[in-house]
């Protein structure tokens, strides 16, 4: 009975303020789409970090006949020097940090080089002996790379210790910047959405001030008076949230999975699952924002 009455009040309010309700829906739709995009970008960054942390390694390049940088003096690293490096890696201080170590001699390095860059011009001039023999070290915790670097780079016969993760930093910071931009736009739009919801509810309350006056006079409880208005705001915002959720899912399905993932096979992209995680977040954010701004807006009419 009372539920029916409240819902019919809500329906009346939505119909009476049709244009304002539409604008609330659109603004929440756009703002929450940006929120969703920001969250998706963070997921993407997390995914890529995880992917590369599994693969990126610390490479210890040994001296070749041609190298003069580091500890190299234009002579190939000797077997003794290699053994010293191995010994260091096996020492208790470092062994705990290391997941696995693989050694690649000139031939193996050359084969890998050929596979990656064989079709570039100039690759024909490279001979196996130009490429340094390499210890590739996988770490349990990639953050510990500086420790390896510190203990190995001073050894004789070691040209360079490189943490391959550093090549990815620019990509991550670009993605982070994009994500922060999306968050910034989202915050601005959310402020607009909150203010718009508050204005809409005030307008709605104003057009019903006769009813409100009588309700207060005859002793309708505050909760009963404010519920239709809050529901009005929440319903409008929820419609916007649903649209934003659809937009996010569409972006993941058709743009990320359907286009980006097809373009660059084997590269880690977020999937449908991440899109679905974003949906409830958007719905809750939309509903909570609308409910709180509507209840603040209607509070003025409830003072007794």
């Amino acid at each position, binding site marked *: *009975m*009372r539920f029916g*009455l409240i819902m019919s009040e809500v329906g009346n309010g939505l119909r009476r303020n049709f244009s304002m309700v539409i604008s609330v829906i659109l603004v929440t739709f756009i703002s929450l789409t940006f929120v969703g995009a920001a969250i998706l970008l963070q997921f993407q960054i997390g995914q890529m970090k995880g992917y590369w942390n599994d693969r990126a390694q610390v490479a210890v390049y040994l001296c070749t006949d041609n190298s003069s940088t580091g500890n190299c003096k234009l002579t190939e690293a000797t077997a003794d020097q290699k053994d010293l490096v191995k010994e260091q890696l096996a020492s208790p201080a470092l062994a705990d940090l290391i997941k696995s170590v693989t050694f690649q001699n000139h031939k193996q390095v050359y084969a890998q080089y050929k596979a990656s860059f064989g079709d570039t011009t100039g690759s024909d001039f490279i001979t196996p002996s130009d490429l340094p023999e390499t210890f590739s070290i996988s770490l349990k915790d990639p953050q510990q790379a500086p420790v390896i670097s510190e203990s190995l780079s001073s050894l004789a016969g070691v040209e360079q210790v490189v943490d391959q993760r550093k090549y990815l930093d620019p990509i991550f910071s670009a993605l982070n910047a994009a994500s922060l931009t999306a968050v910034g736009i989202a915050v601005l739009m959310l402020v607009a959405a909150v203010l718009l919801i508050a204005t809409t509810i005030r307008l709605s309350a104003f057009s019903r001030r*006769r*009813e409100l*006056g*009588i*309700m*207060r*006079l*005859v*002793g*309708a*409880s*505050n909760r*009963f*008076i404010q519920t239709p208005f809050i529901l009005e705001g929440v319903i409008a915002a929820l419609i916007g949230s649903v649209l934003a959720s659809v937009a996010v899912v569409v972006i993941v399905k058709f743009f990320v999975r359907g286009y980006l993932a097809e373009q660059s096979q084997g590269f880690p992209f977020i999937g449908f699952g991440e899109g679905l995680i974003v949906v409830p977040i958007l719905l809750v954010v939309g509903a909570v924002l609308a409910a709180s701004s509507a209840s603040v807006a209607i509070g003025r009419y409830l*003072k*007794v």
Partner: protein
Amino acid sequence: MIRFDQVTKLYKSNARPALNAVSLEILRGEFVFLVGASGSGKSSFLRLVLKEETPSRGQIHVLGQNLGQLSSRKVPYFRRNLGVVFQDFRLLPQKSVFDNVAFTLQVIGKSKGFIQEAVPDVLRMVGLAGKTNRLPHELSGGEQQRVAIARAIVNKPAILLADEPTGNLDPSTSAGIMTLLERISKGGTTVLMATHDAGIVDQMQRRVIELVAGQVVRDERQGGYQTQAVPVQGFGGFGAQPGYGDIGIAGQSEATR
């Protein structure tokens, strides 16, 4: 039923109090006229009883509750025991007579069954049995006021507050409304009516409380609109005034200033 203890009401914009140290008591089942010029404090008095305002000083008890200690959350439940009628009816124009009255009961959560029984009953009592489906603008002023009264009493309140209920009506229609209020009073409801209508007050011969510039200057058991007896409360600051009738005019001019 209603007790004012040295109640003073000051509004921010006005140095002169709307009510000045008013003390009085209204008992169960009484029919009381509240008379006085515009701006003498009648409406403030009614608003204080409703707890639409809080007094600046003093205490108000209504229906055994100290209004100063009533939390704002409980005010709606307190108001369910009071009915209010206004000069301008305040009906909802898009709702029928039945729905206007039913609305009161709906918003305080009464069941459909109760509403279906109570509303026709009360409309019969106020003499609108045949007009339940009319809209307010299809009714005469007197009929609209009857709807408003029906709305005020449908929940069987202990107190009915009426703020110039006949102010917009012609004398014969007013008489009909007064007959109705009298009948409601006979049913045990305390009626407190603010009015300017001298004819009605003189004719009814009920308790009359007269306010001048926020002070009670007269409280008579069976009074008329104009004073004929010595005031119960002293004049206080008005001792310098030449005569009683002049004070009423003074109050009026003060209000229109």
